[in-house]
């Protein structure tokens, strides 16, 4: 079972307050949001000293080296963290900065060590690397080299921003690795049960980090499908619960299902339950017991967005009798479903979160920046504070991850009468303008068939 990195005692040589974070050069716009979220979880005063989306290197400040190791130990988009001694644009400046801090040397001098030269967007021959390492001989390290298990691992990072010229050099000591290996562990290619809606491992893990999923917490996905977020929330220690309007998704086929995926990951004790339910007719008792809600809501009719009920609000309000017993009690009964607007559904998700999240609990979900009705707005609710808004861009479309925190009721500023009127006016006009419903219902012929089937049973 995955567990947090071992709390090794830190050598005094590793202490510091400025740290180099080595990031993967991917999902750049999510990187700071992930670490900021982890800092909230660990209650650490993280500060960004240097950061750019175009560089894999960032400098942060934290009170202690142990804090830095803990924070990065849960990160998916960072690769590792280093106690930073110096950084400069050329070697002369780098060496003179290091030599201005001779008090750093003695704590290092009697431990086994190793040097690594790591070059970003260029390369160095072994000979060049050795020359670079030799230029640090003034550190006067006496502890002996250990290639496999060094007590101190010195790193020289060189960055070539344009692939031609050396831009920056960083010198530091390795503190710890991130949790990036988990991307491989939860890789969809290795997962026994997946479906067309499964979310890739890296983004699922990231989503759960931003939702502050952690040991002891209860996390819920109301659109769980094949369970992608359940596994990654449980990876971080949470107990998870999922539901879907389409129970076949959770049930899978034969031995390929959500329960067995939890077995595959050796986390069965962190899976509480899965059940079939419509979020807009939830069976969950209304009280604030959820620590986080993570999900990828259906974007539209084509992606299976539907709710219980008949298209015609007048129809089917009395049970249909079949052979003397009510049709809905027969085992093969399929309740009718009707189309529902995406924005309405998001409002439901937000209101649900307000009703069920504990104070400080988080809602994290994905939505396209546009769907079949055009640009989608960012939904708001006064009891939820929008903390992060990260965009992932593909060739033809883009989507965003929105992360909200449930505020304490006493911290909420209530809407004034005027604001309320304005909001309602706006909504009314929007509905008239986009002819949204009309379009929606036209595309829903297929669903009609299902509805008819439900009624005739």
């Amino acid at each position, binding site marked *: *079972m995955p567990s947090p990195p071992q709390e090794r005692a830190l050598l005094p040589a590793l202490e510091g307050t400025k740290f180099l974070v080595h990031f993967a050069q991917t999902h750049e716009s999510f990187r700071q949001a992930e670490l900021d979220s982890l800092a909230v979880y660990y209650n650490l005063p993280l500060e960004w000293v240097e950061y750019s989306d175009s560089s894999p290197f960032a400098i942060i400040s934290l009170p202690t080296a142990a804090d830095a190791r803990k924070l990065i130990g849960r990160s998916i988009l960072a690769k590792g963290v280093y106690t930073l001694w110096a950084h400069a644009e050329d070697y002369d400046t780098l060496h003179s900065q290091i030599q201005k801090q001779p008090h750093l040397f003695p704590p290092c001098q009697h431990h086994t060590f190793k040097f690594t030269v790591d070059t970003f967007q260029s390369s160095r021959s072994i000979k060049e690397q050795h020359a670079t390492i030799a230029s640090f001989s003034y550190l006067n390290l006496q502890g002996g080299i250990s290639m496999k298990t060094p007590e101190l691992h010195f790193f020289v990072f060189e960055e070539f921003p344009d692939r031609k010229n050396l831009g920056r050099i960083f010198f530091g000591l390795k503190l710890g690795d991130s949790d990036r290996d988990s991307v491989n562990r939860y890789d969809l290619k290795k997962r026994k049960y997946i479906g067309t809606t499964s979310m890739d491992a890296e983004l699922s893990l990231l989503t759960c980090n931003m939702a502050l999923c952690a*040991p*002891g*917490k*209860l996390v819920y996905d109301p659109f769980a499908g094949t369970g992608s977020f359940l596994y990654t929330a449980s990876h971080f220690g949470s*107990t998870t*619960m999922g*539901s879907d*309007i389409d*129970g076949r998704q*959770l*049930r899978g086929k034969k031995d390929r299902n959500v*329960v067995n995926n939890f077995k595959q990951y050796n986390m*069965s*004790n*962190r899976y*509480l*339950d*899965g*059940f*079939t*339910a*419509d979020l807009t*007719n*939830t*069976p*969950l*008792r*209304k*009280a604030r*017991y959820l620590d986080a809600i993570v999900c990828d809501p259906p974007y539209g009719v084509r992606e299976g967005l539907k709710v*219980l*009920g*008949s298209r015609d609000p007048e*129809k*089917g*309000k*009395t*049970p249909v009798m079949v052979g003397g017993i*009510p*049709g*809905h*009690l027969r*085992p093969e*009964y399929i*309740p*009718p479903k009707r189309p529902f607007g995406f924005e309405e559904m998001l409002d439901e998700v937000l209101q649900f979160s307000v009703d069920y999240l504990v104070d400080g609990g988080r809602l994290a979900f994905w939505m396209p920046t546009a769907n079949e009705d055009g640009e989608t707005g960012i939904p708001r609710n006064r009891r939820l504070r929008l903390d992060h808004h990260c965009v992932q861009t593909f060739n033809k479309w883009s989507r965003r991850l929105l992360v909200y925190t449930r505020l304490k009721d006493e911290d909420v500023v209530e809407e004034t009468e005027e604001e309320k009127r304005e909001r309602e006016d706006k909504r009314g006009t929007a509905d008239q303008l986009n002819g949204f419903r009309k379009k929606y219902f036209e595309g829903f012929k297929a669903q009609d068939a299902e509805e008819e089937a*439900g*009624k005739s049973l």
Partner: protein
Amino acid sequence: MKILTTNYITCAVKACKTSSNAFPLQFRDAELVQEELELNEEFIKNILPRIEWPALVQTAASLGFTTLPSTKPEGDLDEQMIKDLHTLLVETQVISGKLVCGNCQHEYNIHQGIANFLLPNHLV
């Protein structure tokens, strides 16, 4: 459905949400299974304050578990209490049967451990 989950489940019919008869739902023809799972002490401690104790006692009793204290354990839990709660709440589940609403009498099916809370049209 785990016993813990039943403490968070009520009738999906909107009109039943406010009725005290709708919670907890009552089991009918429940088939139980117990599966040994590693104890997660932190979770048990965190979830305890969020449990509706009388409802839990009622559900447990209806399934034949009558050893729960009648009031919620408070303060520092002893090891045995944590283990017992883990066994009842997380290791025990109903794999088939029905959950019935005491207010509207609607029955929800549990099949292969997965309960179905979808409503027929006349209850939406």
